[in-house]
């Protein structure tokens, strides 16, 4: 299913975040894939997904500047692809 900025998402229960100086590692215990969240702000976005009605709203709440929204949306789409985040 394609990523939709206007849907609500959450961190997949099988995925775990490990904070790192650059952002975080994410490991999915189900599919055993390792992903990198390359900025701390992206970590904030991922953590905020659960409590927001849409991914777009989580981006706003994390204070992602307008000019960076496209790249953050692409990052979230990649994370949805690897099942790190899923629609709820």
């Amino acid at each position, binding site marked *: 299913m394609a990523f939709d900025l206007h849907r609500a998402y959450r961190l997949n229960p099988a995925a*775990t975040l*490990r*904070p*790192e*100086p*650059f*952002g975080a*590692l994410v*490991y999915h*215990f189900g599919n*055993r*894939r*390792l*992903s*990198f*969240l*390359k*900025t701390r702000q*992206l970590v904030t976005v991922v953590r905020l997904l659960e409590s927001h009605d849409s991914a777009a709203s989580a981006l706003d709440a994390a204070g992602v500047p307008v000019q*960076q929204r496209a*790249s*953050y949306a*692409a*990052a979230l789409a*990649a*994370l949805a*692809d*690897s099942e790190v985040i899923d629609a709820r």
Partner: protein
Amino acid sequence: MRADQAAMPQPAVTLTEQFKSGLAAPICLTWELTYACNLQCVHCLSASGRRDPRELTTQECMRVVDELERMQVFYANIGGGEPTLRPDFWDLLDYSVAHHVGIKFSTNGVRLDRRAAQRLARTDYVDVQISVDGATAEVNDAVRGAGSFAMARQAMEALAEAGFGEFKISIVVTRHNVSQLDRFKQMADAYGARLRVTRLRPSGRAADSWDDLHPTAAQQRMLYDWLSGRPDVLTGDSFFHLSALGAPLPGLNLCGAGRVVCLIDPVGDVYACPFVLHEEFRAGNVREPGGFPRVWRESELLLRLREPAAAGACASCGLFDACQGGCMAAKFFTGLPLDGPDPECVLGHGERELAKVCLPDRPRPGPGHSRREAGRAAPVFVPLGQMTVRAAT
């Protein structure tokens, strides 16, 4: 390690640069559980054979698992020796998985019968890697010992029959098996397994067999071309020195020693990477106060490895960004300076440097745990011809 993806957006500093200064915990932790082994492979990087009486007890191993869980080390690569020879192997595996430390273990298949395969098929978070070094018994057994090919194939059959799913078939690329890459791939495909090929390092017993076993320059080129067309073949990111031949190979093109990689050996010693079992690269021991986390965070050696490294003799080379100077262990055990070219530098700089190193001047990997009687019976790789050539140059 193979990261499936690095999620955008691009930060100011690249991920590779971030990795150079080290992570909060290793991503790729190798943990060798025992020096005991039923085989005596001529290229064994830990020179295994006999169990060491000082090996970590079951309780001590479980304490290490607890530490790894707290550090969020998501999985450990278990090896040896032959890890399944430990009587507590299966208990440790269950304990680790229950504590959210997934297990990927390497085995020669000796204990992997039908029952063990069924048990593994029922366990989540476990990956199995069967080691072979030839696609035929002839090529394999010359390196791993008589009967080892048949044993590995039996283990593969057992896993496939038990419905384990995608296990790994792991090959160390040598001069003698590099021509069999297609056959290895077919073998893996036939089992629904994944092929993993990694680089031969001159560590452990391979210090004595590397000269005769490592691929030639022409074979390295062939290997690079073969890998470039097969992103589904795993490499443990071990061939990054070949990235100087063209487009970078997938994965982390960087020496991860002490930064994202380390090794715990059977007696609890922590080394910067699985290929440098030598006092010079020993960072500490998990039995010391503070355990493994303290070694990872505070060891002077590991902190030093996380500092920016000088490119040394490679500084003027336009390809340094691609190969990063290659593998620290390969340089160390062939007697080359660590800030110079890799012995298998694709431009041939390493080979020229090697010619200047006297064989007796190479660092020795230490006594190891080879079985004495087997040591005598094992194939003898004495590179007399090369010594002559070296003396002449």
